[in-house]
């Protein structure tokens, strides 16, 4: 089980990691600034295996791959949202961070609740309830399964 960190709709990539940090040399140097403008304690509170849950259009805005990368580096197991902006979605899959569409979860959980994602079954279990998720298209699940897009270059 992981803890839920809950964010609203239209969370843009500048909120996930602000411009002044993305030019830092490495992801490790910038990750402690993740979600700084929305939750200054996020980076220090989040633990390996926790989840980010959000409403519609998560990750809109810039193409900065640093956005999914800092979440992955902090141990976020998956982002579960009502919908995702295109570039964030693609970037997350490419680096091996699961991004799962679940229409009903957001309105039925609170920040701090415990949940577990069962990706292959396409369900989230939390508080004795079960919520169905949209399964990833086969092509994208394949990229995740191999550990991200770059893994195929190293075969």
């Amino acid at each position, binding site marked *: 089980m992981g803890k839920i960190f809950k964010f609203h709709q239209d969370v843009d990539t*500048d909120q996930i990691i*602000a411009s002044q940090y993305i*030019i830092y*040399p490495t992801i490790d140097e910038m990750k402690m600034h993740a979600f700084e403008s929305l939750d200054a304690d996020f980076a220090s509170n989040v633990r390996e295996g926790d989840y980010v849950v959000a409403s519609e259009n998560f990750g809109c805005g*810039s193409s900065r*791959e640093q956005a999914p990368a800092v979440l992955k580096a902090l141990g976020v197991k998956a982002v579960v949202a009502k919908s995702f902006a295109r570039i964030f979605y693609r*970037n997350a899959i490419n680096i091996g961070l699961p991004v799962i569409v679940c229409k009903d979860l957001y309105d039925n959980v609170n920040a701090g609740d415990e949940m577990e994602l069962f990706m292959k079954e396409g369900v989230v279990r939390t508080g004795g309830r079960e919520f169905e998720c949209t399964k990833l298209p086969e092509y994208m699940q394949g990229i995740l399964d191999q550990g991200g*897009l770059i893994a195929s270059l190293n075969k």
Partner: protein
Amino acid sequence: MGMTMAEKIIAAAAGESEVKAGDIHTVELDRLMSNDGTTHLTIDMYNQLKEPRIADVNKLVWIVDHNVPCDSAKTAASHKKMRDFAKEHGIRFYEGAGVCHQVMMEKHVTSGELIFGADSHTCAYGAVGAFGTGVGCTDYLYAMVTGKSWLLVPETLRFNLKGKLNDGVYARDLILSIIGMIGANGANYMAMEFGGEGLKTLNMSDRIAVCNLCVEAGAKTALMEVDEITLEYLKAHGREPKYCFVSDGDAVFAHTYEIDLATIRPIVAKPHFVDSVVDAKECVGTHIDEAFLGSCNNGRIEDLRVGAQLIKGKKVHPLVRFLVVPASAEVYRQALSEGIIDTFMEAGAIVMNPNCSVCWGSCQGVIGENEVLISTGTRNFKGRAGHKDSFVYLASAATVTASAIKGEIATADLI
């Protein structure tokens, strides 16, 4: 069945006679643009590959534009990594030439190409009928190494333009109006295609401004039909089109919008979303601390002319910083030759070298806590221009310049 412009470009790049929205195809990329926002990370990943290689170095264009000139030791390290790698591998490299998309439009992009740019506003290239789309650095690296990538064929929203914009109304007002109408995710995963008689009233600068901002509605790409204006622009820049596609009569669009350009009015997008648009008149009188005229969206010579004409013989308000940042060195030199730079400096504006400037909030000109910026930049997200508790309003070059003079949000007719 008929195909859309986006489907035709992807079909050509995939070597298929027909593709349709929803298919996933492997495509050959024509061009790969990357800037200093992420290239340092691309290089780190490249160096960790078992067999690092570049499929075709001639496709790569690297541009330092986000923090130029460099503003800190950390940035200097990232820039140096990019500069050294480009030199070692013979990658075409620009530093100080301007904002990446403006440089790409001036020097590289042509009609019918399929282009990945490691920057979300790559959709600007649709102004000449090229399929430009923003990607992250992993996608970029994969394409750099293989020359190829995978692409989900997008559905298309078609915008039929008719009539013409009234005096004092600009392409910037048009695209902000459209984003307000369809919303910040109104075109998510889709292509936005523009055509119709009204398109012929928009010059290339207008077209870039419209296409560039389509990502703010979530679009994967923007595409404009190629016409005489496109071909003249390419010819003037010494380029030939690759393909001149238009959508077939029986192409399938997810939705078609009819836009009468004469109905568009001056617009302001309020903090903190680009789709939070209102009639500019509703914001008149709002306090500002800084005004910014520049960016890949609205820093071309046509935009500087609009500002210069308004401010000639007047002064920037004493409590306002007015930043004027030409989008490229070419634009800067043209502005110099027309006396425009002199006009801005005479009025008390701060004229800067071509770069992304305060539009991306990590370069010169950032704003402090509770400060307010009115900007021709691309975004007004929370904290986008500096402090997390600051405010950005988006408007046209005319409204921004008028506001710089008044010291509060003002439309050009109030000057």
